[in-house]
């Protein structure tokens, strides 16, 4: 937890619940999960995975994506993060929502990941920014120990899309 002191009056904060931190004057800081997006690209039965260049989980893999910034729509986050990490241009209108999963992040922070399936994009993936390398791997890798996030049921959901995609 990075928030130790009340942002309104400077007094120490104590945890009422893991979501709620109060100071003795009654000001509240809400530690609710931040939102992030992850994007699934499928090509020739393989999914594009990104090896993390930075902590947390440096060296492990995730899907291209990142945090939704202030005033940013999740579809715009997807376009921006894909551009930053892979250099590819994503058509946000082609994104189909597949699920939402909450995972622990750093310390007492958690993140709610929204997973989209991309149907239209252009360019060839070249790793940059938070991505050390980009690799096409089979669907099963979503359940591998080297895949950092926990997206329970996502691989089954993708399998059920049928052979047209996988």
């Amino acid at each position, binding site marked *: 937890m990075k928030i130790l002191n009340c942002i309104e009056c400077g007094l120490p904060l104590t945890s009422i619940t893991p979501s709620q931190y109060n100071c003795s004057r009654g000001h509240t800081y809400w530690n609710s999960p931040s939102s992030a997006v992850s994007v699934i690209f499928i090509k020739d039965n393989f999914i594009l995975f990104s090896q993390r260049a930075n902590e947390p989980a440096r060296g492990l893999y995730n899907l291209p994506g990142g945090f939704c910034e202030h005033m940013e729509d999740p579809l715009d986050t997807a376009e921006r993060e894909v551009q930053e990490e892979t250099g590819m241009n994503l058509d946000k209108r082609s994104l189909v929502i597949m699920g939402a999963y909450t995972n622990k992040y750093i310390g007492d922070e958690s993140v*709610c990941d929204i997973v989209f399936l991309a149907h239209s994009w252009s360019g060839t993936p070249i790793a940059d920014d938070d991505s050390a390398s980009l690799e096409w791997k089979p669907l099963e890798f979503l359940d591998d120990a080297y895949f950092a996030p926990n997206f329970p049921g996502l691989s089954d959901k993708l399998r059920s899309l049928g052979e047209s995609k996988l």
Partner: protein
Amino acid sequence: MNFNFCPKCGTKGSVQHPNNTAYVCTKCGWQFWNNAKACATLVFIQHDQLLFSTNEDKADPNFGTFDLPGGFVDYGESAQQAAVREAKEELTVTVQEADLELIAAYHNNYMEGVTTIDLVFIVKKWVGDIIPSDDVTSIEWKSISALDDPQFVQKNYTGLNKILAKHTGEQLS
């Protein structure tokens, strides 16, 4: 969000945030990204109508506006768990996670400096009578066109009426 004090070193007035996105303390170097917070939004459908929470407080400047029920995802909670909890808290009904269908996600300018990402779930089945409770004081069933009404508080739910029209059509057939 306004940081009068640095949450790490406690210095007054040291946190700078030129654009509400990144915050940094000029004294201790503490850095914070003001990322959007996850919320669950609930869509109950019955007889081709949607359930809205309504503001019927004549003393409130927002009198007459209406919204979809829902709320913040708590720490450690999935959006689905938050949806189930909010359905119980705000409407007193019991919902199973398996009866939730995630259909969209929109950003919402919740208040000055705070953005939420609203994960929109269709509630396919619920048990119990819908009774307004907690943050919800009154409810009303309205047609899908109410989503385009200026009194509907959410302005960023682009295309939700089309997505829902498809789903209600499926429910009717």
